[in-house]
């Protein structure tokens, strides 16, 4: 039975995390030599849709219903579940984004499917058992979940699976499905994007500041470092609790769990709750005055020193590095 991937777009463009999910879904389809169908909802250009084939889709369903231009989890779930039924797909894959997390459980209920959110690796299908590894305890652990339902919904975390290009091309078909009136009780009034910033959950590099920075007026150097690296900015819980930075930047057990290639912690001591949120980072750099700070126990690289002296030197060194490259 084929696999269905919901290809989420933002303003008509697919993000890297979507292509990761397409590549991941392709690999799941390959496990049982089956087809991969992608479904896109909203206004997306043909060129952009064709990119889904590049990452492994055999067929692309395009839903261009004007009522569905903006994301409404109820209505999108109806259309995606209808597509899964029409295609005979028993596995639906999507990205574990903010929208994906509101969508996956609804698709699961519609298809009588278990939902595995936060998947970090390909499923294993052995001796009739279907298992998927996912994050648990807010990054302090992983759980391997056995799915016992025939249908399955899997949401993949960003930066957990590498995009793989294929030589495929695919037909684009228009797809429509009935949307109930009760599915459209949510109206989008406004989207507010901080366009000059890299999105934290998707970021490949994150520069994060803690209480060691002493006050919000000292974030200029954090932002400068982040800009130079094409990184997102983040912070620890005490910093967002104090109102120095918005809650949306709070990384940790009760904030956002990140999984970047590089996480730079500046003036963050590394409370257990913070370490939970960064445990999936590939490389961690710590800059802290206190050589005994717990952050150095999880860091791959560290500088023991005053952030106010070290960070400007780092900025200068990166500028030099970029000039040479």
């Amino acid at each position, binding site marked *: 039975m084929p696999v269905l991937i919901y290809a989420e777009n933002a303003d008509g463009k697919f993000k890297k995390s979507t292509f990761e999910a397409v590549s991941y879904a392709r690999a799941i389809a390959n496990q049982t030599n089956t087809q991969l169908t992608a479904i896109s909802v909203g206004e997306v250009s043909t060129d952009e849709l064709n990119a889904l084939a590049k990452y492994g889709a055999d067929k692309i369903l395009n839903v261009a219903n004007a009522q569905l231009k903006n994301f409404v989890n*109820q209505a999108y779930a109806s259309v995606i579940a209808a597509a899964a039924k029409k295609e005979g797909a028993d596995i639906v894959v999507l990205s574990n984004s903010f929208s994906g997390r509101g969508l996956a459980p609804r698709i699961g209920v519609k298809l009588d499917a278990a939902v595995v959110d936060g998947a970090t690796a390909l499923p294993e299908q052995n001796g009739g058992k279907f298992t998927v590894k996912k994050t648990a305890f807010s990054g302090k*652990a992983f759980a391997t979940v056995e799915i016992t*339902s025939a249908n399955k919904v899997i949401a993949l975390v960003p930066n957990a699976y590498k995009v793989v290009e294929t030589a495929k091309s695919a037909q684009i078909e228009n797809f429509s499905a009935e949307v109930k009136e009760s599915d459209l*009780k949510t109206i989008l009034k406004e*989207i507010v994007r901080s366009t000059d910033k890299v999105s934290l959950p998707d970021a490949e590099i994150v520069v994060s500041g803690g209480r060691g920075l002493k006050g919000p007026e000292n974030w200029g150097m954090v932002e400068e470092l982040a800009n130079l690296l094409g990184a997102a900015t983040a912070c620890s819980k005490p910093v*967002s609790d104090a109102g120095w930075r918005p809650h949306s930047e709070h990384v940790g057990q009760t904030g956002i769990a990140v999984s970047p290639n590089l996480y730079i912690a500046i003036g963050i001591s590394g409370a257990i709750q913070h370490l939970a949120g960064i445990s999936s980072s590939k490389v961690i750099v710590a800059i802290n005055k206190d050589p005994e700070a717990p952050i150095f126990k999880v860091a791959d690289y560290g500088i023991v020193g005053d952030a106010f002296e070290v960070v400007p030197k780092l900025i200068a060194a990166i500028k030099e590095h970029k000039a040479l490259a």
Partner: protein
Amino acid sequence: MKILVCISNVPDTTTKITFTDNNTQFNTNGVQFILNPYDEIALARAIELAGESGVTVINVGDAGTEPTIRKALAIGAADAVRINAKPLDAWFVAYQIGQYAKQNQFDLILTGRESIDYNGSKVAAMLGELLDLPSVSIAKKIEIDGDKAIVEREIEGGKEVLTVVLPLVIGTAEGVAEPKIPNMRGIMSARTKPLTIVEPAEVQTNSNIISYETPAPRGQVTLVAADDAAKLIDLLHTEARVI
């Protein structure tokens, strides 16, 4: 206005997570259990919107969760319901709460955006689907305006502002409200507030956890001298290959 707040009993955020029985069971030995921090935010906002008399809390759990339920009553909920069953998976929990919500009218159902143990953030949207109601899974602001809610939803790199017809289900994140600390009057009255125990409805789970692991230990830290930032950049470029 009547609001149902779904609460979970979870390990304290400072817990070091370990496992027993060949990594198949979470080791609860010595673990302090608390009201899930996101549910505290939901409860605080519910009390702001509906007043204490308008708020009911519901938990799916065995008798061991009662201290957490009493904490929610101390914070200010008027009454509580405990579905007498272990919370086996998100579907099981959503189904049980859905059954209760179908028999009792609520204008708003709040959950935390996720529980800090299994992090599914699934119950809010599953409830929405079961009750054929709208849902917003990760909300950072909730206002009520007549028969509508104005909800801000987190998205990557920004937010969406939505208006949604009541009743609806919302998963609350930071920003919705400040957690409310119980006062002495609340703590005293929590002991006598009604806590109804309901037996669970028959339903199959559709997943189970077969094993756990903790993240692979990281290697030793490579320290670079404070005055040699260029060396760190070089290591990140040539050794770690991340910039």
